[in-house]
């Protein structure tokens, strides 16, 4: 009996059903807390025409950037897309569509999507190019714009520890967008560093409850650092 056991055997199983033209939500901030093996599996599968929603798009040879080479991404929804030469090339040539979205609005769009709220008003972006063409309403004397929720066919998430029930804990700032993404996927796939025995995770400390998680796999991670900054001992 499988019941609540969310574990799958392989990365192929983890992303089974992902096909051309789907929308994929991906957790991570820069290269921190990205589902690096699930991204690699998407590259291996070769699915094309994807809409990818993620705060950033990786770098040329790591993270979501690896999906650009074979033109697997048709449209990117993100708040910041620097640090990636191939991305810039495809953007300038018009091969890639980009919808730049304020970071907090992007997080809230996915939070709302996962919470069954179809749209919300926010002051963020009013009077800017982001607000163009969007419905405006005044609340408390201040104009707000209507922003629509985002959900995905697949959500790909990087956690730290999970139990087989799919309860997930994130580590440090590798949390970032991951809980928002996890709740907004029709099929949510989580890869973690460690799967622990049921009961080991303190229920009140769970970041993403297992109800949001459909598939769970344990992987090993490179965890590349984008900007290595240190201090020297005084």
């Amino acid at each position, binding site marked *: 009996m499988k019941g609540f056991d969310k574990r799958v055997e392989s990365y192929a199983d983890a992303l089974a059903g992902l096909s051309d033209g789907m929308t994929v939500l991906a957790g991570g901030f820069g290269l921190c807390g990205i589902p690096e093996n699930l991204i690699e599996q998407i590259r291996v599968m070769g699915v094309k025409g994807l809409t990818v929603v993620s705060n950033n798009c990786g770098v040329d040879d790591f993270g979501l950037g690896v999906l650009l080479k074979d033109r697997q991404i048709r449209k990117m929804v993100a708040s910041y897309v620097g640090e990636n030469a191939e991305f810039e090339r495809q953007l300038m040539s018009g091969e890639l569509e980009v919808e730049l979205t304020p970071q907090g609005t992007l997080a809230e769009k996915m939070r709302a999507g996962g919470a069954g709220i179809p749209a919300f008003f926010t002051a*963020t972006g009013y009077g800017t190019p982001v607000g163009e063409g969007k419905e405006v309403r005044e609340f408390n004397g201040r104009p707000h714009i209507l922003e629509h929720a985002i959900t995905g066919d697949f959500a790909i998430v990087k956690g730290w520890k999970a139990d087989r029930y799919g309860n997930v804990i994130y580590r440090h700032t590798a949390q970032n967008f991951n809980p928002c993404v996890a709740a907004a996927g029709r099929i949510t796939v989580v890869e973690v560093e460690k799967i622990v025995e049921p009961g080991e995770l303190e229920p009140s400390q769970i970041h993403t409850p297992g109800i949001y998680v459909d598939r769970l796999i344990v992987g090993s991670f490179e965890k590349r650092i984008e900007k*290595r900054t240190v201090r020297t001992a005084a």
Partner: protein
Amino acid sequence: MALSREQMAQWVANELKDGDYVNLGIGIPTLVANYVPPGIDVMLQSENGLLGMGAFPLEQDIDADMINAGKQTVTARAGASIFSSAESFAMIRGGHVDLTVLGAFEVDVEGNIASWMIPGKLVKGMGGAMDLVAGADNIIAVMTHASKGGESKLLSRCSLPLTGAGCIRRVLTDLAYLEIEDGAFVLKARAPGVSVEEIVAKTAGALRVPDEVPEMRF
């Protein structure tokens, strides 16, 4: 003399109040953390989901899972908390951050700010800047007063696409500290050795100059 980047950071640091939660943008604002006056405790918010950002780590303590919004490796200080991006922007949008300091290309007399895109140049994105300017009550925009060619960046109307509309009331430039009131810049202080005439000449938007304009001290 125009203020150096360090002096601008130092000036902003002197505006901090004990117990403030503060978000510092990339560039000069980041330097503010180096000049927090003694006896003042502030908690730095990093919008990737960290409240209580600490110093850079020692080499042996580097942790790929511990970064700030500039993607730099950092540490968390005592009293820090870590949370999701949705939570992070809930506290920003909800007006819980006491002071936001960020850079700007242009500001204008209506309190508009442009800081994220220059048409014709590659646009990398607004990141969290639009949320920060929309959510904060108390913002200091930190910028150079004029371009290298001498063209004012303090305008009657921003020429670049906006980051936020009507949200800026305080501006620190390398020449002056100004506040925006009733459709004009008000000159509140000038950099040491910088004349009121120079500031007037380099401010394109309406500017009110009080009888007394104190010189900043460092």
